[in-house]
């Protein structure tokens, strides 16, 4: 399991309040096992699908938090005036699908007592394949596409590449979201 010098009681207490974690820390728990080395036999493994409805208000909220006041993200009327059929997806909106859609993975993690502080976000990549608009219902399937252990001067780290492939309610493949996560051992 991951170990990282932290005040465990405080962290554990806080975990109770954080219902939503991203999926990658869970990967650490599942994949790390009891050995130091990353178990490469897990490469290619997919996890149970999750679904999420694309919501206008979440796009509005994300753009607001980022500080993008382009009206197309904040009202359907403004979006339509700008030539869009509805509020368009903010470029980084796929992050919403992972955090709000893939919540069960996080719960597993908390139950396993994994210290998520060891995880660092290395890369994030999106491939937008078809339009996604509010009201669409997306199904995401997360696959571990690569993983390796690197030994450094300060210990070892696992470098995981995960990909979520999203299809919409019509079965159309609309988005790929790929993430590289570095987990300090």
């Amino acid at each position, binding site marked *: 399991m991951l170990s*990282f010098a*932290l*005040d465990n009681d*405080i*962290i554990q207490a*806080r975990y109770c*309040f*954080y*219902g*939503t*974690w*991203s999926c990658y820390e869970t990967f650490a728990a599942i994949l790390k096992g009891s050995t130091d080395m990353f178990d490469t036999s897990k490469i290619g493994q997919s996890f149970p699908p999750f679904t999420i409805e694309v919501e206008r208000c*979440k796009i509005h*909220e*994300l753009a*607001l*938090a*980022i*500080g*993008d006041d*382009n009206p*197309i993200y904040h009202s359907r009327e403004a979006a339509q005036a*700008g*030539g*869009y*059929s509805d509020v*368009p*997806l*903010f*470029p*980084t909106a796929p*992050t*919403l699908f992972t*955090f*709000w859609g893939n919540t069960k993975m996080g719960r597993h993690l908390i139950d396993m007592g994994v210290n*998520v*502080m060891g995880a*660092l*976000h*290395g*890369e*994030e*990549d*999106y*491939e*937008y*394949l*078809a*339009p996604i608009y509010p009201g669409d219902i997306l199904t995401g399937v997360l696959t571990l596409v690569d993983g390796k252990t690197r030994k450094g001067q300060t210990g070892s780290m696992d470098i995981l590449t995960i990909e979520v492939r999203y299809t919409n309610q019509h079965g*159309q*493949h609309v988005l790929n979201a*790929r993430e590289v996560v570095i987990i300090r051992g």
Partner: protein
Amino acid sequence: MTTNAQVPTKVYFEDVQVGDEIPKLVKSMVTHLQLVRYAGASGDFNPLHTDPKIGEMIGTGGIIAHGMLIMGFVGQMLSDYVGPTALRKFGVRFKGMTHLDDVITCTGTITEKFEVNGEARISGKVQAADQNGDVKVTGTFVAALPRRS
């Protein structure tokens, strides 16, 4: 693969040249309130980004911004430039931590013009750096642009 609906954008394929700079975006100073807000919006409630005590404990020098917030800044620049539905690919590498009071500037350059299945596309490289020039993210994008004719 379906091609995204064509929507009005400010930039036409013919008007873009390799080497052109994307209009830069200078963001307001990153504040604690913004990180709390971003946590709530994105669903990333990692206390590393919201709770100063955690930041002190793990030695990041206080709380640090969500990397995805900085990617969001770059996304805003690209959205302003080509519009959100023009994007075909967008990816970044996280290079450094962003702290409170950092002022992030996003910049980018066009690196290629090409065509895929009759769709006119550009690709470019982007980055976000703070007031000292420390790079926080670097990345690339591909966007589809309308033609004038």
